[in-house]
């Protein structure tokens, strides 16, 4: 019964969206859809897609870690570290990804003679997303009741163990929802590597669009390709949300 209602709701929602986009499409003045030319490029595009997956997952792990470091730096009493984190975050928050990508590779990477675009791109993306992630941690940790900290202290937990065993398991459910969005941003953000001329998904689809002039089809393929990564990832996060929620 409940399952049926859920299924019905899902189908109804899907229909509403489909009707909406169908209506929009009928109003479009262009030509008919034509996916054929993409066939020849499928392997080319597919390899770019794999690159995107690789980069985004590495960057994602890095961002989770860098976010933690930044959070800890911001909390410390050692004020140089504190302000390093604050300045880093302010720069990241204020700078467009385009600029960050170009500065990171063509200026910073160049100065230190790092030539691997994948490496520079992954680190840059990790640093970029990490700044946002650190604020997610911060928000969640603020919500832990003072009692829990005090009890951990009383029973002899070190600061690290308190975070690891007491705080983290309690905040994970409030961290995961915003993190899902951040993960999606990371995956799409991996397109920043296209400014470095890396052959990832975004760049390659755009290459093909340029060759074939099939913009509409290209955008559809681009979106589907990203959805194919983001949807499973978000499903995974939602699953973890339920699994790791101690309240259930």
């Amino acid at each position, binding site marked *: 019964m409940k399952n049926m209602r859920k299924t019905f709701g899902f189908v109804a929602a899907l229909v509403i969206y489909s009707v909406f986009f169908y209506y929009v499409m009928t109003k479009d003045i262009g030509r008919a859809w034509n996916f054929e030319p993409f066939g020849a490029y499928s392997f080319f595009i597919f390899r770019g897609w794999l690159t995107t997956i690789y980069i985004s997952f590495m960057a994602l792990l890095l961002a989770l870690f860098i976010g933690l470091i930044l959070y800890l730096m911001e909390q410390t009493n050692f004020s140089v570290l504190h302000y390093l984190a604050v300045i880093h975050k302010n720069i990241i928050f204020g700078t467009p990804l385009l600029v960050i990508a170009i500065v990171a590779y063509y200026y910073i990477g160049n100065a230190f003679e790092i030539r691997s675009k994948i490496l520079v791109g992954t680190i840059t993306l990790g640093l970029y997303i990490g700044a946002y992630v650190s604020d997610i941690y911060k928000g969640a940790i603020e919500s832990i009741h003072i009692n829990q900290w005090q*009890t951990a202290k*009383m*029973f002899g937990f*070190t600061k690290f*163990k308190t975070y690891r065993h007491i705080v983290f398991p309690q905040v994970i459910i409030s961290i995961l929802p915003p993190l899902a969005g951040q993960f999606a941003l990371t995956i799409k953000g991996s397109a920043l590597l296209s400014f470095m001329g890396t052959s990832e998904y975004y760049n390659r689809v755009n290459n093909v669009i340029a060759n074939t002039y099939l913009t509409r089809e290209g955008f559809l393929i681009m979106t589907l390709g990203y959805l194919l990564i983001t949807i499973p990832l978000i499903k995974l996060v939602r699953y973890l949300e339920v699994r790791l929620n*101690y309240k259930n």
Partner: protein
Amino acid sequence: MKLKIDNLVKKYDNKVILNELSMDIQDVQVLALIGASGSGKSTLLRLIAGLETFESGDIAINDDWMSREDIRDYRKKVGFVFQDHNLFSHLSIFENISLILEKVHGQKRTAFTSEILSLLTYFGLEEHKDKLPHQISGGQSQRASIARALAIKPEIILLDEPTSSLDPVLTWEVLYAIKKLVDEKKDVILVTHEIGFVKHVADYVIFLDEGQVIEQGRDILSNPKTEALQAFLGKVLSFA
């Protein structure tokens, strides 16, 4: 236990809570702190546990003056039952105990499992061992908090209102558990409103009022000298 406190001053938001409080206690096993609500009992207990900083003064337990450096080792020897229980909200009752043994005291799961279970059984919690703190009754969570404090086999155990949510039967059980601790040569500092309970269990009583020691001794309950304590006790006796 020996407990020596010199001119302890504690403020919250510039309001004095403990006002140059001093005491010098020797050869006491169960020390009870009594006093009106808000008189500073919990605050004093937290300071003795090294849980909070204070403005000035000194605290020594068994001639060991409390200092920043070894405070963590000191705390490991202390069991604490918080007034509002403070169970870790994401852990089951069992895990509330096992986590501490495993991560802080470095014990092996195989070694402590049966011990925890028998402790939980003693406090009538065996069927609730996998529940989370918000799924158990007030008295159950109080018992879990006591069991947790006992599980680390503390040398000294501090209890803040350990029987406040317990029915008479269970109050007896806790009393009995504390007596067993005494037999095992462990020291106890106890904050409670249950004067009957204090009479049974404490061998030294301190009566606090407004952050100061008003009266103290081994038999101040049967032989109160100050008017404040007489009034305080007067209300109790007229009760039962």
